[in-house]
């Protein structure tokens, strides 16, 4: 275990409608065993001691599954590692003397709430448009009544692993949410349970995605590289395919 002395350039913004700016902080004696968020905890303790308001940032489970943590770290969503959330990123990834630039997710659909906290409720609204199977509680048949080929179930699970953090949007040069939407559409398209609403689902979710102000996909694959849950770009292709099919066959 060793210790790092760091320079942090952090985006500070008091409220949604306030002007923001970068502030530079020195932080010494950071253990390489710390997680990135623990490093920010230490920064905040230092700020409180100096009577400066701590940096606001979203986080919760701190084990990479809730999707609440975010942060653009040196220009990369969730930092430099593959398949990693910010809370799983450890300081051993950095070198003594490094300068780290920390910014909030940037997208028109993700307005800044404060400092590094953004509002990602647009993603919830996209799900509300159809990211589910409309089944009322109590009416389900026996779970084993409908066999699902293992490879389909596995692929559906790969897509369903999305944690909804928004890194795909943050990393995309167009702030596109196609990977997020593609993951949910794919999960449902791959399972027999999703079939009855297949057409309406993809049309409605894409319409909502556009209405929320996300950009279009330019197939740069930045989303895939930034995704902490390893959601594959093939899900975007499937989304395109589903959409194509739906456009041609939808009754409306």
């Amino acid at each position, binding site marked *: *275990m060793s210790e790092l002395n760091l320079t942090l350039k952090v985006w500070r913004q008091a409220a949604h409608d306030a002007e923001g700016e970068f502030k530079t902080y020195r932080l010494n004696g950071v253990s390489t*065993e*710390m997680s990135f968020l*623990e490093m920010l*905890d*230490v920064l905040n*303790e230092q700020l*409180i001691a100096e*009577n*400066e308001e*701590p940096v*606001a940032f979203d*986080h*919760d*489970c*701190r*084990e*990479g*599954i*809730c*999707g*609440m943590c975010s942060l653009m770290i040196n220009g990369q969503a969730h930092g430099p590692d593959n*398949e*990693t959330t910010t809370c*799983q990123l*450890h300081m051993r990834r950095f070198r003594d003397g490094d300068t780290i630039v920390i910014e909030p997710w940037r997208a028109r659909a993700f307005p800044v*709430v*404060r400092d590094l*906290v953004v509002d*990602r*409720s647009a993603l*919830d609204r996209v799900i*509300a*448009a159809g*990211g*589910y*199977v*409309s*089944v*009322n*509680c*109590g009416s*389900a*048949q026996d*779970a084993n009544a*409908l*066999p*699902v*080929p*293992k490879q389909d*179930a596995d692929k*559906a*699970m790969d897509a*369903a*692993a999305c944690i*909804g953090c928004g890194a795909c949007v943050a990393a995309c040069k167009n702030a596109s949410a196609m990977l997020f939407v593609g993951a949910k559409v794919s*999960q449902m398209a791959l*399972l027999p*349970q*999703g079939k009855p609403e297949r057409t309406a689902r993809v049309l409605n979710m894409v319409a909502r995605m556009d209405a929320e102000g996300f950009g279009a996909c330019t197939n740069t694959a930045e989303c895939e590289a930034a995704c902490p849950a390893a959601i594959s770009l093939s899900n975007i292709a499937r989304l395109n395919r589903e959409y194509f099919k739906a456009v041609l066959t939808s009754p409306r």
Partner: protein
Amino acid sequence: MSVVAESTLDAKVPSGPIEEKWEKHRFEMKLVAPNNKRKFDVIVVGTGLAGASAAASLAELGYNVTSLCIQDSPRRAHSIAAQGGINAAKNYPNDGDSVMRLFYDTVKGGDYRSREANVYRLAQVSGSIIDQCVAQGVPFAREYGGLLANRTFGGAQVSRTFYARGQTGQQLLLGAYGSLMRQVEHGKVKMFPRREMLDVVVVDGVARGVVARNLVTGEIESYAAHAVLLCTGGYGNVYYLSTNAKGCNVTAAWRAYKRGAYFANPCYTQIHPTCIPVSGDYQSKLTLMSESLRNDGRVWVSKAADETRRPRDIPEEDRDYYLERRYPAFGNMVPRDVASRAAKERCDAGYGVGTTGKAVYLDFKDAIARDGEDVIRQKYGNLFHMYQKITAEDPYHVPMRIYPAVHYTMGGLWVDYNLESTIPGLFVLGEANFSDHGANRLGASALMQGLADGYFVAPYTVGNHLASVKLPRVTTHHPAFQEAVVDARNRTEKILGVNGDRSVDSIHRQLGHIMWNYCGMSRSAEGLKDAMEQIRSLREEFWQRVKVLGTGEALNQNLEYAGRLADFLEFGELLATDALERNESCGGHFREEYQTAENEAKRDDENYCHVAAWQYNGEDAAPTRHIEPLTFETVKLTQRSYK
């Protein structure tokens, strides 16, 4: 603090044979006619498995639901982090499972401190939960034939656990969240994220609403309804370090307690045996490694106390597979409390591994040799990945180092068979209530309970309340709301007004140390008294020295944190009090004074076969300990044995 009085609580368990209780009760409960349901408003606080499933189900029935959560999205509730699986008595593997066996295992696993009727109902509806989740599109693991796969969890000798890789909680929650968002789209659920419930509003003795802080604007908001459901999770973060998410807190439950809901069995806390050990003082949380790993991993330490060799260099004959040695029948699959204590025993005796000596090995060498690395990767890939991220060690080649950590809390607000607290109209679901797990929860049962409560119990019992209690119109203009709003605002002002010199985090860490050292894996009367003393003085220190900057009229995470810590500082004392009053060892509550010759927990069924439910009597008064006697008509009370 002394006990003032004891009275007996009525759980309203229906009469009749245990198999027929729920059926009979469903028939006896009153119904709200379909066209009348839209006249009723229900508030659901929390959007975890219990909250999301309850809100969605009630909205599907036609009630108007208001849903609040503290996270930025309902999908982030901490149920999402549950890894291993969900139990159900489907008996798909044909290995002898049944409703009766799941019921029996759960009662036994809970060390005979749970309410039989509730547990039986839980086992009865367990199968429907799986049906419902599959219909929602939850991608459970499947066999090559396309049918659902199962695995084994601790405390069971059958394979009844359904799973979606190591992300079962995530998938179940996303299923429930999907149903919830569908109702949001239909306008039947009004969703309010980034809201923290600060009070329950009771009008004429009935819960009629809540007061919550809008975490973005700081505004104190009022919500009125005909019934309130608390699905706000457990209190494990009173220990500071736990596997809970950072935001998990006792505030909602504690404020309900202060408004008259009884708090049951707070001393029942679950220490999970397989977590990644603490690595330093800066540590902010602990990460669980799913119990399912014990299906293939073997737990061991060296036979030599002064071991210096690397784990791979220690030959078989020098290894002590202590769980297999002590519990040959269940081996590595003993329940959590047993496995945790066994690890602590080895480490305390000086056999611990790693730099701190507070860890044991969980080794996959044999499983990898038997099944190959690919099979193991398929089953546990994401867990191994997570372990590697945190420790920078490769568990495919070096055994994991694990140590017990606070994980789940069996205690919670007391509820009757209808999941209704002692405040009429206030229902408590999921981990927030105390009901089904007794003194120790079995693995893969939390998900089962949360969804059972939300999908299959509350929709009936809440309807019964709405149909049978006279509920006059109440709006947020009622004085009770005004009073609660003022209370909440004053509290915020009070915290901001201290302007001391200690950060919230530093005080929380100190509380955590006290709780872990004296109310953790083993407890003693002396230690508990000491802890209560220390908590009281730390609480005073909090109100004199806490330093929270900024204002209450904006997003202020430190202010939120301080409010939660203030409640933990009160709650911690109640936990210690309860532990002190329970003069026996059972499940997760281990009192050093009460153990068998083989260091196993020794229950006292004569004097403590009951639920302890605490009633709040005011700031400076001692709480009253009420009891609900536990009667076992179906399961025979015996000394729990996994040998």
